[in-house]
Structure formats: C-alpha cells, structure tokens
C-alpha cells in the first residue's frame, strides 16, 4: 500500500569485504587504501557505491524479494550516494511504498515503486534508491 514503511535487515560491512569488493569491481584508491582515501573528497576509506547497491539488493532479497512473486526490475529511477559508507558500519533498510498499480499491458503483473534507504547505525541513510519492481498479481475477481 502506498505510504507503507517497513524496516528490515542487518549487514555489517567489514573492512575486508569493503576492500575485496573494490579490488574486483571498483579499484579506485579511495576504496582500497586509507592513506589515499584521506586526501580524497571522501576524507577516508569508503565503500564503492556499487557495493552499497549490491548490499541493498541482498538485504531486499532476504527481507522480502526471494519469498515474493518478484519478476525482477526493469530499472532504477535514481540512486543517491548521500555520504561515505565507512568500514564497520551496520546497515539496514527502510522501505517506503510510493505507488502500486497493475500493468496495463500485462494484467497479471503488478508494478510497485519503492523508495529504499540504506540506513547506517546512526539512523541516517547513506544511500537512497527509487525504482519499480514487477510482481505477479492476483487474478482480478
């Protein structure tokens, strides 16, 4: 239902996991090395934004998607990397339903637009993401 807010998930981002992801997918110095990171705009070692997206995906899978009728997502409207994600941060998700409707072209498919916020342990988001996920829809009665 639009306006519905729920919170779920727990993921502690270790320094090792942060550096391992960066080494494979985003090997920029400010994701790999404390000293190089200190002199960067991030002001210290911080996770790749793509890792934040991947962690949010994992928390969403465990939180509701894998047990749902999810048909995948056609895309993402917007992602904002709001502040640096530091090693040792404990992350969770705050999910807000923005809109829910039945597909016009495929009546057996429902489209739900969500705002996902990846929350740090200080209660503030490090990333926000808005996008639509497709679900199987109940047969209209």
């Amino acid at each position, binding site marked *: 239902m639009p306006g519905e807010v729920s919170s779920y998930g727990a993921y502690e981002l270790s320094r090792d996991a942060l550096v391992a992801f960066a080494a*494979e*997918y*985003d*090997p*920029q110095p*400010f994701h790999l090395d404390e000293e190089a990171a200190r002199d*960067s*705009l*991030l002001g210290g070692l*911080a996770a*790749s*934004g*793509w890792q934040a*997206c*991947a*962690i949010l*995906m*994992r928390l969403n*899978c465990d939180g509701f*998607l*894998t047990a749902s009728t*999810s*048909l*995948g*997502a*056609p*895309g*993402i*409207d*917007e*992602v*904002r*990397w709001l502040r640096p994600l530091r090693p040792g941060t404990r992350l969770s998700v705050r999910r807000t339903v923005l809109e829910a409707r039945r597909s016009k072209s495929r009546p057996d498919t429902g489209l739900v637009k969500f705002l996902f916020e990846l929350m740090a342990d200080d209660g503030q988001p490090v990333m926000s993401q808005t*996008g639509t996920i497709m679900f199987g829809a109940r047969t209209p009665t």
Partner: protein
Amino acid sequence: MTYFDDVAVGVRRELGAFRFTSEAIRAFAVQYDPQPFHVDETLAARSHFGGLVASGWHVAAIWMRLNVKAREEDRLAAERAGRTAPVIGPSPGFRNMVWRKPVRPGDELFFFSEATGKKTQVSRPDWGVVLMRNGALDKAGEEVFAFDGAVFWKRRPIP
C-alpha cells in the same frame, strides 16, 4: 582530458568487452542477488526468463570495473607523456538505469561511457561534475544496459 575543463562532451569512449559465464553470474548472485533466476539453472528455466540471467547489479559492477580500468590507462598515458593525470571521482549518484535485455551465460557485452554535459558548483570551486551516458551493447549492437551517471572531476587550478 586532464582537467574537468578539458573534458569533451559527445565523444563515446569504448571501455572494453566482458563475457558473462554461468559461473560468474552465479558467484555474484549468490553473494548479492540470490533470486532463483540468477542462481539456479533449473529454477531459472522454469521462470519467466526461461534460463539463468545475470543480476543487473553484476552488469553495473562490470561496467564500473572496465570504467576504472580505462581511467587507469588514461592516467598511465598522461604520466608517460609527462602530463598531469586527471583526478576523478567519487560520484554523487545516477539516474535512469535500465536493463533492457536479459544477459545470459556466454553473452559478451561491449561497455561504453560518453560525457553528455558538465556542471560547475559555486560551493565546490575546485571540482566540476561531468554528466555521462554509460552502458553496454550486445554483439548485435543493441543497447542492453544504460544509465545516466555523474562524477566529480578536478578543475584546472586558477593561476
């Protein structure tokens, strides 16, 4: 393209190719996107995809890997030529990411990045923001994946 001020808008940069194997698709998805159609061939065959497909975030992460590699090559080329290397990143976010076609085991994608605009900020006079259209084409030249990116880029120092 050392400084933000030198970045040419409208020039497409080829970032290189990547072939998605079944092993790589499942290895990424087991860790970050364990939906049945990304991790299990049998369940994927019964899904609406009709077979295993890569997580969209895997495709995005590979774009980033090839993008960073291309920039590293630029940096080394600048150093070899005795020029100042560009100072780039991080990114404030992106918009309009689309996954137009499923990426299946054996598919090879060709990644690209193109500067589409530039913005300066009064609050950060040392840095500009370069707007980009990024994505990947398949073998047939059709766009499989794309998004509107943005990245901080160091400006030319004022003498």
